[in-house]
């Protein structure tokens, strides 16, 4: 049996999150076949061999220049139906969350999605997924062959494990589909999405007014391109920050290596989006704020004094 790891590309270049899928897929103890849908050769796809792909398949079709939900789903489902796959593993990114259920339905199964853990146990695949806003973990036995899974981003840290990665290109014959991406409105250049950042500095109502987010942007900048600025719902609803930056139950789920919550109280719906971060720092003037219950390190006090000082120290380290 083989595990099929579905990679992601944008504008013809492999997305880094693909390495996590290849790393996670190996947890099932089977050879990994990595597959990507592209209009032609996908730049960087050969790199997945380094992370443990035994085989790399590029499915090509002109429709794949942009994400083509129906065409991709059809091509992947047809590949999966050739048989011999124990599992099909996606990433639970914006695209993966759209694509995985389409493929699953075509295979007559559901997705076990947004996983933080997966293991093979006999004939079944046993997975763990956070539910109830991260307040509980659900352990699920997936009995279908193949199991269709998606992995929570930033949980399966890519590990180098070089494999042959023999590559194959297959032109697939699928139509463009009824649902087509007309364009991608890119976020302003240089802004990193919170879902992809290794460091997130999030601000809440404690920032007092939108202009003060500059303090957080300066701190993010001090991390040199690895950090993004996130926000609580309170400040998104107030129109201070874009919804794309919102962390939490009705925003994004993130798991960066470092999450710094500034002037955020730590409501359960905010925690839902960030409690799987590796290290959490809280800066809040209220020593009883619930955020301190999940923070590894807390500093009590006025953020307008603490954050600029922190920025200065981080600059020294990176300077």
């Amino acid at each position, binding site marked *: 049996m083989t595990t099929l790891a579905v990679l992601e590309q944008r504008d013809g270049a492999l997305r880094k999150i693909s390495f996590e899928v290849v790393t996670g897929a190996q947890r099932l103890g089977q050879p990994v076949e990595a597959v990507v849908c592209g209009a032609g050769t996908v730049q960087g796809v050969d790199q997945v061999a380094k992370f443990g792909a035994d085989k790399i398949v590029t499915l090509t079709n002109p429709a794949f220049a942009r994400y083509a939900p129906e065409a991709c789903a059809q091509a992947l489902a047809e590949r999966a139906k050739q048989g011999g796959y124990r599992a099909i593993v996606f990433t639970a990114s914006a695209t993966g969350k759209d694509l995985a*259920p389409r493929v699953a339905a075509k295979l007559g199964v559901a997705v076990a999605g947004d996983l933080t853990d997966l293991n093979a146990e006999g004939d079944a695949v046993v997975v763990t997924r956070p539910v109830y806003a991260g307040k509980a973990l659900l352990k699920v036995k997936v009995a279908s062959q193949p199991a269709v899974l998606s992995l929570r981003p930033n949980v399966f840290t890519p590990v180098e494990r070089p494999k042959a990665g023999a590559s194959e290109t297959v032109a697939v014959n699928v139509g463009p589909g009824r*649902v087509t991406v007309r364009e991608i409105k890119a976020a302003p250049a240089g802004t990193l999405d919170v879902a992809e950042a290794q460091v997130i500095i999030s601000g809440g109502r404690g920032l007092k007014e939108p202009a003060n987010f500059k303090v957080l942007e300066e701190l993010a900048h001090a991390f040199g391109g690895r950090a993004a600025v996130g926000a609580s719902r309170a400040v998104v609803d107030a129109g201070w920050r874009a919804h794309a930056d919102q962390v939490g139950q009705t925003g994004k789920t993130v798991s960066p290596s470092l999450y710094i919550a500034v002037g955020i109280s730590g409501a359960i719906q905010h925690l839902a989006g960030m409690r799987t971060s590796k*290290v959490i720092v809280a800066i809040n003037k209220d020593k009883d704020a619930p955020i301190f219950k999940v923070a590894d390190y807390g500093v009590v006090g006025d953020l307008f004094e603490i954050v600029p000082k922190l920025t200065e120290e981080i600059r020294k380290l990176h300077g």
Partner: protein
Amino acid sequence: MKIAVCIKRVPDSETRVKIAADGKSLDEAGVKFVLNPYDEFAVEEALRRKEQAGAGEVAVFCLGPAAAQETIRTALAMGADRGVLLSVDKIPADPLESAKVLAAELKSSSWDLILFGRMAIDDYNTQVGTLVAELLDLPCVSAVSHLDIEGAKGVAEREIEGGIEVVDFPLPAVLTTDKGLNEPRYPALKGIMAAKKKPLDIKPVQPGTGTLEIAALTPPPARKEGRIVGEGAGAVGELVRLLREEAKVL
């Protein structure tokens, strides 16, 4: 515009999660249930589309226990015209089984739009809408945060990492709604009174068991006890040292 909206009854997001004696489910004693917040966006969007068109119907469908009638009444109070409860003792653990039951019910009429929430805030499955679309072979756009419809053509926006995807699709279609699409209305007293008289059909259904089996529901691993490093700007030096030497993230 004839619009169907699928809604789910879920525990309020403030709920303290207590695990039931079976070790596999939520202890529902004392839990407050609400209309899934993402489904509020779907109901609101349906109402606005119908209001704009000046004619049509908004019907809501809910697969759930008898108590979910209350959830349906909430949607009726917002302004939906009628509701259908697909009644079960327990919602299946496999979302495909829920999708099959919903698809079978929706198939008996023709709809311009079928709306779902992006995800249910209890099980976080994030797929029932897309599965129903596949079962009915309808075009589907998921996680819609902006929507324009003209005639039989729609343009939707969805957030992706680092940008917004602009998607063209034909009607009839299935859409799943994300935050940002609209601001859901609160049911007014008049609406609540009117909802009591609106039709609510109850149809017992028998979903299959599917291939996903719940093995256990457990509390999340407790995060290692954190600590307050200190107060004010004076604590920053120590914080940075800890982040470097202990946490090793700098």
